């Protein structure tokens, strides 16, 4: 009997290693990493398409005159990654109440970020920006801006919901620290994407 059989507790044909997770990463965690890789490719494709349009369009608008709002949003999202880490750290240490508290603080950070983001959208819409028209230049700007930031906002919203559900179920005993860690991976990824959205979508379109 191979060591694999002994490890898994049941028999498989020789040479078969069914059930052994690749790279010895648990299945749920591996699934999340594969999702993150695919999602990274999605965002990369969006940003490349955006850059392609921006590079090829003469009258690309530069509508942003203040960085205050996007700076606050960035700070909140980066800080929420730290609070997520603290939550997972507490969960791994067995401190359930602290883990729950930090997870809820992280979700709150996500809610504030989303609220600021929507406020910014409404401001731009008030100035006359839609998906296909704006007062400053090519209509492509609205389409690319709303698509990229909208996709990110969708991820933040999904992340907040996931944090609430997993946090509450963790507190209720249905989920464990590993589940919280996997949700944390997703939240860090959402944070990571923002690190690329800010410079390319906001800062390069800053009107001086």
């Amino acid at each position, binding site marked *: 009997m191979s060591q694999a059989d002994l490890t898994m507790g049941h028999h498989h044909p020789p040479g078969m290693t069914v059930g052994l997770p690749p790279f010895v990463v648990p299945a749920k965690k591996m699934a999340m990493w594969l999702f993150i890789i695919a999602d990274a*490719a999605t965002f990369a494709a969006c940003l490349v398409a955006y850059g392609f349009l921006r*590079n*090829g369009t003469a009258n690309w608008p530069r509508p942003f005159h203040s960085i205050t709002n996007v700076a606050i949003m960035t700070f909140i999202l980066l800080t929420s990654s730290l609070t997520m880490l603290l939550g997972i750290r507490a969960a791994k240490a067995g401190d359930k109440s602290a883990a729950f508290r930090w997870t809820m603080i992280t979700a709150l950070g996500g809610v504030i970020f989303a609220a600021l983001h929507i406020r910014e959208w409404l401001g731009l819409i008030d100035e006359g920006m839609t998906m296909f028209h704006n007062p400053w230049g090519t209509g492509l700007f609205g389409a690319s801006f709303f698509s990229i930031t909208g996709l990110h906002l969708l991820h933040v919203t999904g992340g907040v919901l996931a944090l609430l559900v997993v946090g509450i179920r963790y507190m209720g005993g249905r989920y464990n620290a590993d589940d919280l860690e996997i949700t944390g991976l997703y939240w860090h990824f959402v944070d990571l994407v923002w690190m690329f959205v800010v410079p390319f979508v906001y800062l*390069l379109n800053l009107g001086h």
Partner: protein
Amino acid sequence: MVSPPDVQKHEPPARYTDPLGRYLLIYVCILILAAAQFFIAYTHIDSEGMFARMLFVAIAEAGLAVLFFMHLWAEKRGFLMFVLVFTIFVTLAMQYGWTDSNRMESGAPYTQKTEAVSQ
């Protein structure tokens, strides 16, 4: 005889037992890099130079987040290589069409200012 799988020999998985100070240090580094991007936005350099600097800083930020916040550094090296090589390869493979983007300026629909917009 089937050789035993690599179950016993792997490094211990990430256990989130790093000192709190390390997390704070990484957090502060990422904040500083984010601030650097805002600083770059206000420097008087050409668009290409600004883009290159911002991309470099963003990659540094993302690297810190992936390796230490997402604990990829603490996973098996094979897994780290799988994630990084796969993602970087796919991302680089998307860059093949950049030179063609310059041709859009003279003809693609919606790239020109319309009458309704120019009011």
